[in-house]
């Protein structure tokens, strides 16, 4: 049963993962948070495609977080269109401009900490050398 998928869904995170620099940032922040155990990354495309298994899986979560790179807010809108209530974050509101954003470890960590309320940073100092230290 090593592959059991019956653990609690908890918090699911949906980055827009768009084609721009801020889209990339949203994606890498979500992956960072997932690695650090702050949330489970989920497939926004599956929600947009109305895949029943994905919709039902998302319904079992305690909280859904959308991270959008720009004000078009595709992730937030896709989830709302599917009938979900979402906690939404937009990188534009955090001062990141499309086409002018450098995606590096420092930026990823800064955004992840804003979204998680500093918990990523806490994990890094607790587990230096662990997954969050990567």
């Amino acid at each position, binding site marked *: 049963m090593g*592959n*059991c*998928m*019956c653990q609690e*869904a908890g918090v699911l995170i949906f980055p827009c993962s768009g084609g721009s620099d801020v889209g990339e940032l949203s994606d890498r922040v979500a992956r960072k948070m997932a690695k650090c155990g702050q949330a489970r990354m989920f497939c926004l495309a599956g929600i947009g495609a109305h895949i029943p*298994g994905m919709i039902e*899986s998302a*319904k079992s*979560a305690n909280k859904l977080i959308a991270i959008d790179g720009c004000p078009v807010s595709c992730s937030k809108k896709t989830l709302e269109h599917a009938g979900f209530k979402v906690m939404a974050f937009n990188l534009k509101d955090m001062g990141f401009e499309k086409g002018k954003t450098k995606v590096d470890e420092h930026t990823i960590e800064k955004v992840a900490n804003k979204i998680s309320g500093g918990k990523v940073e806490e994990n890094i100092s607790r587990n230096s050398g662990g997954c969050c230290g990567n």
Partner: protein
Amino acid sequence: MKIEILGVGCPKCKMLTASAEAAVKELNLQAEIVKVTDIDKITEYGVMMTPALAVNGMVVSAGKVLSKDEVKKILSK
């Protein structure tokens, strides 16, 4: 009617199977209950949280152990 219980076989999957069997019996339905334990098959359905329940190939619940009455409600639709 084909009812599939999707899950690798942990206690939660067994509880959902029991709920489905009881629901089918109480509703007096002609239904085949199949346990799907192959993880590749489960993910083909798009299911990321188990246990999940599929009726006639459509996932109707995931990540929850439904009670007998909840399964009955789904099967009665």
